[in-house]
């Protein structure tokens, strides 16, 4: 790590610590109303969803339309662990099991699906997502369409926050390792990647499985926040919401996904009167973004304190 990188790292770590302290203090001292706390938890969960979808859409460059289904698998798996295994530390265990279950589903879907490319892959992930939802609706143990109840509501803000920080940090560091570079190289040029010795299939499945894993953890948080689960919450619309977050943030940018996730979760709440128009606005945002700023608000760049000055100097020139 050279000096500049170290300075950047310290600045970002300091900023993160400051945000964390402010957030935990505000929640701890009861300055935040339960309503805002709810929005905060939703934002945190959505951050994991958006950043994990970014692994597939941004890093790997494949359009996946069934991300909510993995969240659903994780949510149900985690809920079942909590309901049926009364052991100490059952919450972290439940989250982990949620992640593992979703990862298994992700690998099971990814292995066959990733033989396809582009449009076909998008469609097949959509198809798989819908099948997962229909199966969940028809499984008695999950309560089916009548919902699964009695999940302990143990997702607190500090807990969710800690999980988000760990998950996002892991995805960030992974993206900047030889594995992340391999995934990126596949996005950039699969033929060239193969002639650089990159095992493309392995990395496609890895990206897909990891994305599902983190979505499963987010699902676990969601389950323990709501206390009740219904399969229809994990439908195509939801997958699209996450896609919107990734697209708005800029495909490939983790910070972009984080910001977009927070904004898109908070905005409809702030603009309550406009909440009926939410999906309308989302859809317009998708179209306009693709037409006028297809790289997203941040492009593939990462937002950081040290980076702001640089961006101002360079202006918008590096957008493409």
């Amino acid at each position, binding site marked *: 790590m050279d000096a500049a990188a170290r300075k950047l790292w310290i600045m970002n770590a300091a900023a993160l610590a400051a945000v964390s302290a402010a957030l935990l203090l505000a929640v701890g001292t009861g300055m935040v109303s339960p309503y805002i706390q709810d929005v905060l938890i939703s934002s945190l969960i959505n951050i994991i969803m958006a950043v994990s979808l970014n692994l597939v859409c941004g890093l790997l460059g494949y359009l996946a339309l069934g991300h909510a289904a993995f969240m659903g698998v994780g949510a149900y798996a985690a809920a079942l662990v909590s309901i049926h295994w009364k052991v100490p530390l059952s919450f972290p265990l439940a989250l982990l099991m949620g992640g593992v279950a979703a990862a298994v589903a992700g690998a099971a879907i990814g292995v066959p699906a990733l033989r396809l490319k582009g449009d076909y892959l998008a469609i097949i992930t959509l198809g798989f997502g819908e099948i997962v939802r229909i199966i969940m609706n028809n499984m008695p143990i999950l309560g089916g369409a009548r919902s699964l109840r009695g999940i302990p509501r143990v997702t607190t803000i500090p807990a969710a926050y800690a999980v988000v920080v760990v998950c996002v940090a*892991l*995805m960030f*560091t*992974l993206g900047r*390792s*030889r*594995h*992340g*570079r*391999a995934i*990126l*190289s596949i996005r*950039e*040029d699969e*033929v*060239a*990647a*193969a*002639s*650089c*010795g*990159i*095992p493309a299939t392995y990395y496609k499945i*890895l990206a897909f499985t*990891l994305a599902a894993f983190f979505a499963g953890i987010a699902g676990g948080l969601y389950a323990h926040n709501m206390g009740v689960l219904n399969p229809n919450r994990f439908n195509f619309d939801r997958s699209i919401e996450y896609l919107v977050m990734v697209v708005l943030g800029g495909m*490939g940018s983790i910070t972009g996904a984080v910001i977009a996730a927070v904004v898109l979760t908070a905005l409809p709440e702030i603009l309550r009167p406009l909440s009926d128009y939410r999906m309308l606005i989302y859809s317009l945002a998708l179209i306009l973004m693709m037409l006028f700023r297809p790289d997203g608000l941040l492009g*593939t760049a990462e937002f950081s304190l040290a980076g702001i000055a640089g961006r101002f100097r360079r202006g918008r020139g590096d957008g493409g």
Partner: protein
Amino acid sequence: MVDTLLEVNDLGIQFGGLAALERVAFGMEPGEIVGLIGPNGAGKTTVFNLITGIYPPTSGWISLDGKRLAGMGTRRIFQQGVARTFQNIRLFKKMSALDNARVAAHNQMTYNPLTGALRLPGYWREEADVTKRAMAMLEIFGLSEYARETASSLPYGRQRRLEIARALMSGPKLLLLDEPAAGMNPTETQSLMSTIRDVRDRFGVAILLIEHDMRLVMGICERLVVLDYGQVIARGAPGEIRRDERVVKAYLGGSAV
């Protein structure tokens, strides 16, 4: 006699019933620079695509160091020590020059995803090593000051150089260059020629290159293989090829070289 590095024997491939290559045969010694020339559409790039396993040959075989490459995929052939560049530059455009080079060293690192994500010592050790080597490689190609720039932001000539640097990162025995001087001005071509010679001397790598720039071909190639309509019509030293009537007729079309 030195052991043959590359042996191409009776190589043929058909696309939709049409023979793109027929009975192509040639060999290369270790550390040799050989030019693969011929008119457009003669099948030169197809030879590269067959050597690197992008297409399987319809007939014949290719061996490297006595080992048959047939049936191996692109990636395994790369692991045997064959690296290449592409006619239409295939860099990882949105990645930095340094990362382009580091991707090619992927298989020289062994740390697993968890080690990478948790930044365990194995990550730091291997990354530091590969980064050092990648920077050294960029230095050879005069690219070290652009290490952090995205590949697509580099001018054309530097992109070509970066692609060669990337190919060399794996320490190949055989380097395939597909029109390395295309789009370069005479000055750039001159410096590319000395770089290619330098690379051969420094790394002891054999280089097979496709090129239309005759000054480059005649200047650095020790032997030439001439392809026309998918068949080898001549083989030999540049001086002989220059005087070969079939070559002059088929390829040079009378224009003096």
